[in-house]
């Protein structure tokens, strides 16, 4: 029964099938036409309709009425100017959205411009530095350079060496802890300018496991702290100081001179 009604509807649609392709048709009409495509009966109907429609176009229109169908625009279309287009709320909204998106992209691009292997860990450690209090560290009064032996002998950490530029700084305390990815981090607090040093494993290649190296010193900034990071023997060293890092520059330029 349903099938019969469907066929009837299809037949009804075919009788009203568009004459020319310029008519917009809905899905049901398209489907009915595509089913009937190729049938002689439908082809005859289409040819018949086209011939009648062509003849209808030739029915003479009285001259007085024809004037109304002049090719000229009776009402001139309003001219679009740049000024008008810019004031259009849609254009304005899209422009603002594009500027904001571009701003976010530029910000992300600039903030990752100076990225290096281990920069994410270094930023996290700057947050640790900001929240560390002296009581959290074991008191150690020595030169920073001598703590490598302590880290090796007490904690089994190889190559956790403080670079020569910072080796003669007097320490207040130190500790070794695991970060959220179970990496062993050594933290040293020095007396000078309340500076903190961090030693942590360098980022490794996921396929080969080899440490990702980078030359010289790189800077990172986080929460008002600045860190200068260098890599040596698969271990990164970071000297962290509160502020823009002008206290670090003299030590690093000394190293460059050497």
């Amino acid at each position, binding site marked *: 029964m349903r099938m019969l009604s469907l066929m*009837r*509807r299809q*037949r*009804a*649609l075919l*009788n*009203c099938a*568009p*004459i*020319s392709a310029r*008519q*917009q*048709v*809905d899905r049901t*009409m398209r489907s009915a036409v595509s089913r009937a495509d190729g049938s*002689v*009966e439908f082809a*005859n*109907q289409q*040819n*018949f*309709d*086209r*011939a*009648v*429609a062509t*003849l*209808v*176009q*030739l*029915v*003479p*229109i*009285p001259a*007085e*009425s024809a004037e*109304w169908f002049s090719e000229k625009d009776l009402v001139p279309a309003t001219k679009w100017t740049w000024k008008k287009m810019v004031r259009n709320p849609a254009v304005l909204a899209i422009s603002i959205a594009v500027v904001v998106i571009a701003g976010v992209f530029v910000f992300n691009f600039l903030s990752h411009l100076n990225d290096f292997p281990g920069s994410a860990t270094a930023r996290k450690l700057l947050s640790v530095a900001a929240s560390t209090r002296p009581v959290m560290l074991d008191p150690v009064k020595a030169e920073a350079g001598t703590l490598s032996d302590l880290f090796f002998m007490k904690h089994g950490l190889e190559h956790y060496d403080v670079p020569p530029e910072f080796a003669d700084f007097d320490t207040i305390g130190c500790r070794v802890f695991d970060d959220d990815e179970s990496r062993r981090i050594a933290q040293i607090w020095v007396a000078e300018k309340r500076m903190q040093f961090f030693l942590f494993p360098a980022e490794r290649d996921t396929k080969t496991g080899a440490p990702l190296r980078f030359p010289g010193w790189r800077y990172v900034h986080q929460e008002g702290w600045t860190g200068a990071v260098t890599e040596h023997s698969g271990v990164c060293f970071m000297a962290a100081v509160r502020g823009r890092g002008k206290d670090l520059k003299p030590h690093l330029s000394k190293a460059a001179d050497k």
Partner: protein
Amino acid sequence: MLGDSRKAQEVFHATLREGGVRAARGEVPTEPFWLFRDARWRCLEATKTELQPESFEMDEQDIAPAAASQIERLDPTQLAVWISAAPDPQRSALALFYLDEFDYREILDLAELKLNELSRFLAKGRRQLQAWLDAKFPQAGDV
């Protein structure tokens, strides 16, 4: 719709005038095709007062493969008169359909018809026109 250019012109101008007045008053209906619907009713009103064709069963024929060539031989005015002689709403259906300006949904809306009605009127119109064409321009094989 009218088969008479003078009447068609009168209806056309009356419709435009009415549209202009409504626009000036800011009373232009929001529904689409109101101008066409208005024109159609004016055409129907205009034909009410004149002599009506006798109602009789017209012959019908299946569409012939050579129908297109028969139609080409017709004079456009003859076709207009033939369509205008059809009883309404078949006349509206044929006129709107062969204008080739509206899709079938728009015709249903304009002529206030249902799909099966429009389909029936068009199918019947084609068969009647074919019978008329056969009578007017007999084909070689016709007896």
